[in-house]
């Protein structure tokens, strides 16, 4: 009984930590650019396929080290140029937020069907990042779970460092606080928008590489992941990074417990109910500002 609960908690923590990585990327991009990215989940799947192509299809040397080293610049370039080509031309119009939502929805369908037509509809499995288990008394931990947890927490810390200690991060924060003011002091606003979009693409893509080891690379997973990241962001407070962290862990735990005790099919209903109740009492989310 106790061991079962521990398993559920571990699975909740594991999912929660990766969700945190993805949701914080989304909170960042919404907080800074105010663009609603509905193609976010497709970048998660893109990360999974990128790892699959390198590891399984091409069989490169160096395993996951090479994958992460190659994925970060790849995802950055993809995100940067998609923002430049698709989102930034819309900004001229007054109703651009709605246009951006529609465009990214179309983009997500295009990418998801693109994956199916290139790689086929079957799920792809990624090799484990590390093998083996660690046994402490009656408890058995999978090394893979621990490495995924550590990597996503490391990713979060890297992100926090980047945002608070580098000039790029400060520029991002300045644009988030006041785009006009940031432009006056000479911050290239458009480039910051594109860079933020690119950073969020990296975060969700890495999340895809980490979680696809456990859940397979699935071209149909994109919508679910996208909505999950959005729910966490809204639950924690749009644009609030700390709120997203807590919300990701709460949702991860909720999912694990609901999935274990009531069945997988109730997860989405439970998550939506939690979101509706929270928004009914706190429309700005857990830690959001009015």
């Amino acid at each position, binding site marked *: 009984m106790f061991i079962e609960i521990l398993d559920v908690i571990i699975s909740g923590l594991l999912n929660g930590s990766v969700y945190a990585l993805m949701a914080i990327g989304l909170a960042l991009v919404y907080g800074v650019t105010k663009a609603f990215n509905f193609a976010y989940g497709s970048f998660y799947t893109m990360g999974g396929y990128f790892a699959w192509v390198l590891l399984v299809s091409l069989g490169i040397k160096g395993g996951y080290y090479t994958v992460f080293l190659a994925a970060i610049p790849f995802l950055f370039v993809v995100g940067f140029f998609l923002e430049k080509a698709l989102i930034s031309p*819309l900004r001229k119009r007054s109703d651009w937020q709605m246009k951006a*939502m529609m465009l990214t929805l*179309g983009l997500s*369908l295009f990418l998801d069907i693109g994956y199916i037509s290139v790689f086929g509809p079957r799920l792809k499995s990624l090799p484990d990042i590390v093998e083996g288990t660690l046994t402490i008394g009656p408890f058995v931990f999978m090394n893979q779970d621990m490495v995924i947890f550590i990597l996503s927490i490391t990713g979060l810390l890297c992100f926090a460092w980047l945002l608070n200690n580098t000039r790029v991060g400060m520029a991002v924060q300045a644009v988030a606080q006041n785009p006009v003011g940031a432009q006056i002091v000479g911050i290239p606003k458009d480039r910051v928008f594109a860079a933020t979009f690119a950073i969020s693409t990296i975060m969700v893509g890495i999340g895809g590489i980490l979680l696809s080891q456990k859940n397979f690379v699935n071209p149909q997973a994109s919508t679910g992941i996208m909505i999950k990241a959005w729910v966490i962001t809204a639950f924690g407070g749009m644009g609030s990074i700390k709120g997203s962290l807590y919300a990701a862990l709460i949702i991860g735990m909720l999912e694990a417990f609901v999935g274990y005790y009531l069945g997988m*099919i109730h997860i989405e209903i439970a998550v*939506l109910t939690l979101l509706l109740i929270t928004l*009914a009492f706190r*429309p700005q989310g857990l830690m959001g500002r009015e």
Partner: protein
Amino acid sequence: MNTKSMVTILAVTYGFLGILPLFLGGSSIYMRILTMILIWSVVASCWDLIMGYAGIFSFGQVAFYVIGAYSSAIFSVSLNVTPIVSIFMAGTITAIIGVIIGLPCLKLAGPYIALVTFAFQLALEPFLKGPLGKAIGSGGSRGIISVPPIHLFGMDFSSSELVPYFYLTLVLTLICSAVIVVILKSHWGTAFLALKDSEDFAASLGVSAFKYKLLVFAITSFITGLFGALYVHYVGILSTRMLSMEVFTVLLIMIVVGGIGQYPGVVLGAVVTVTMNELLRPMGIYRLLIMGGMVVVIVLLLPDGVTGLIRKFSFSRWTNKESRSIETHESNL
């Protein structure tokens, strides 16, 4: 757009669609396409009314359509209600659910509404497939088969009687389009325009955003549910596949092609999109790839859809240019 040109465009489009069965009545493929154009044009018009005019970023339109379809199917299959009664009951149920969703939603800021309504659509599928859905008679993942056709004036309106069904749909389409035009041209439409331009100023003049938005949410949910119900009695079978991203995107393309908040435009969008969707069907999976790419390209190149394109080449060019320059000026501030 003034009332006269709005009504003219609608009358010409629906009139043209209305005489086509005289020539194409023998071909079941064309009749199916024509019927689907009518159904989708109303559903998309409702979405345009919510999103383009009332300014509510609701992404739950497909969910309301499916709720209408399921409630009518459940009423007529499990409770033996006559289909012509059950489609109106389905509309009412959908309107009630719309209000329940709308009450918390409409107090939220724009993007939150999109999120909650979209999540609502995603949660509907596991609900209908799961034990809760089975308890109310949704048939689980198998769906509902053998939904009875609509029986009226001693005639059956179903997929085997395509021409009568088409005209039944046309009558309902004309009624619902008239309702939409009346809403847009009444003081409601003016209220929406005022709220969209400046919510604070409109509120200070005594325009209650919440009341109008909730009312329009209820009315469009009713119409959408009604047409969902109409559709289910036509095809006779129902499953949760209606909730797929594909249906959602096709509906989205209609609005994108027609132009958001350019009312009769979305009807033209429905004509173009449904026809193209059928023409691309032999391409298999690439059809969706093209549809997705099309959304991206049209949003980028034709922000006001075909309506914007028509207006560009018509006489109102000068006034339009003026308003556009004001718009860009505002967004730069």
